[in-house]
């Protein structure tokens, strides 16, 4: 869907054409949005701030998944495993090298990126569904490795190590509200990164690989190289997300939400939000996280209403809601909420000729 602009709104030079924020009111909106976001601890309650923390690391991981699956078209079921790698690396760097979390984050990102690169190697031989199965193998093998190798370092069979409080010099980020600022700054950086990737040669090459890889190869896009790059970037962002999650939960381990369920959850968030769009990860993550909290709420109410069925009430509503919503979206809105938002904007601009 092309961008429809009202009459009289045209670009006068190349810089204007390429700009992300074009008009003065858009600058105002961005400024206002940033102001509202970064002062959230002041006006919001604890639930909003902690949910924002959760959203931050999910959105970053989904942005990575968006590059791999949305832009490059390679299905990945292993994003949570790469998050696990990033979380472990960051935790180990902080614990054993004594470095601050802000140095550990890039290290974790690099490490997770390399692991993602390794598990992207099968893309030389296989594509499509078979590559998805390779990522599934990664999702199963990586947690097993963290439980059965380097037991002293990685926590062994409990599969869990503790992460110290993040510090910056003398400032300790102990509270959820203080950690919020870290999450938001990192999220801002990754959003700018992903936005830029999508607008440059790299992003266009990714899209060409997704749309028609044969034609892309004929045009000189080295498929293997770009697929590997996509895996690297996706795993790198997953590593950042995993490190953020590990530091916010103050622990990292295979049982703490880095499994196949979470990988599927993130894929679902991506699809519900909109594959291949920059707004998609935000929309999808918000919708699914809110849905999960709603399911928890309903579950706990149902557990109170039917005490003898309490255990099953508390845990079973989440997958039911998520599965249902995902299936409904796939049938009725397969291009996601971002596409629906584009349609709404277009309908508004075209009024009264929208239908």
């Amino acid at each position, binding site marked *: 869907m092309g961008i429809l602009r009202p009459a009289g709104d045209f670009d006068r030079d190349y810089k204007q054409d390429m700009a992300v924020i074009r008009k003065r009111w858009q600058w105002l909106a961005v400024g206002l949005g940033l102001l509202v976001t970064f002062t959230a601890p002041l006006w919001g309650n604890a639930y909003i701030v902690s949910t924002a923390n959760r959203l931050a690391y999910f959105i970053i991981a989904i942005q990575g998944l968006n590059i791999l699956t949305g832009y490059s078209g390679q299905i990945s079921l292993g994003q949570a495993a790469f998050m696990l790698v990033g979380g472990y690396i960051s935790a180990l760097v902080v614990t054993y090298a004594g470095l601050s979390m802000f140095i550990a984050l890039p290290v974790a990102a690099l490490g997770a990126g390399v692991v993602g690169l390794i598990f992207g190697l099968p893309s030389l031989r296989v594509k499509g569904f*078979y590559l998805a199965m390779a990522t599934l*193998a990664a999702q199963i*093998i990586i947690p097993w490795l963290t439980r*059965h190798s380097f037991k002293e370092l990685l926590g062994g069979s409990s599969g869990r190590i503790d992460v110290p409080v993040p510090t910056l010099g003398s400032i300790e980020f102990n509270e959820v509200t203080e950690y919020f600022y870290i999450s938001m700054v990192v999220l801002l950086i990754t959003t700018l990164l992903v936005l830029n990737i999508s607008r440059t040669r790299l992003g266009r090459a990714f899209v060409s690989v997704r749309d028609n890889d044969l034609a892309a190869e004929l045009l000189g896009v080295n498929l293997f190289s770009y697929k590997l790059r996509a895996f690297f970037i996706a795993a790198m962002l997953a590593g950042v997300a995993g490190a953020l999650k590990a530091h916010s939960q103050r622990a990292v381990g295979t049982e703490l939400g880095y499994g196949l369920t979470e990988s*599927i959850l993130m894929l*679902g968030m991506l*699809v519900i939000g909109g594959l291949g769009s920059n707004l998609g990860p935000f929309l999808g993550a918000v919708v699914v996280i809110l849905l999960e909290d709603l399911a928890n709420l309903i579950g706990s109410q149902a557990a109170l209403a039917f005490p003898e069925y309490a255990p099953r009430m508390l845990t*079973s509503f989440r997958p*039911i809601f998520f599965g249902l919503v995902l299936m409904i979206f796939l049938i009725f809105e397969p291009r996601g909420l971002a596409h629906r938002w584009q349609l709404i904007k277009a309908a508004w601009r075209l009024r009264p000729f929208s239908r």
Partner: protein
Amino acid sequence: MNWPLVPQQIATGILNGGIIALIALGIVLIFKSSEVFNFAQGQLVMLGAYVTWWFTGGSESGAEIFNLPLWAAVLLAIIVMAFVGLFIERLALRPMTGQPLLSIVLMTLGLAAFLDGLTALTFGIEPKNNFPAPFSPSDVFRIPFPGAFNDTIILKKTLVAAFIVAVLAMVAFMLFFRLTRTGLAMRATAEDHELARSVGIKVPHIFGLSWAIAGIIATLGGVLLASQVGVSLSLSTVVLIAFPAVLLGGLDSFPGAIVGGIIVGLVAALAQASKVIEVRNAAEIAPYILLLIVLVIRPEGLFGQKRIERI
């Protein structure tokens, strides 16, 4: 390699592999007819086991209505699960025809999550320990085998019975596919939807039928599995092991699914026979390492057809 243990592990591995092969067969059936890899097969297996358990009067509330012997419960559960498969195909998969691969994959993944939650909600999250087994766990065959540990191979009777049932089911299924007109129609649809339609085969009906049969196979597999490890929510993750089996044998090959299942069972069992503790611990991921090797060396599997992309 702990040689005295090897004969025992080979035997157990093949027997376990038979059950895995049956489950893999269900996945291949759906893939062959509609090119959909059913990530939710594990949940269907689990649901089939639970429904059978319920019909045998396992739950106190259900026992007031149904309290059937195992064979009758299995028959009833098969009928129920056939309808479940039909419903799933009609409601969830029919709208997905012609959609890109990611949508279909996510549809079955979403279905898997939904069925997981539904099973937990309907039957509870605690593992059930009253699944009626034809033999008690200590009923064993002792086969003298010189060279094995204690010079005998011990085979649990439940496992042997499960293997025999699995083999019979697979044979019945293959016969159905080869000799009946419906089987012929399904094979034709698997080859080419358009041509099948043009000779008068109702392709959507075939889709529904293949999901129904997959539901039946899943129920049988679930019952066999439950007779070994009991009925619990972890059955769906146990079935995860069938995915490497399917890919090993070839996504579109029934003999491949059977061979793949047996190989996976063998590999997982033989890993237990190693002297090296790391290899023994690796038994749970051995099928996945095998999967990676297969993907790199021969992606189409042992018996699968090479995918040739034509422009």
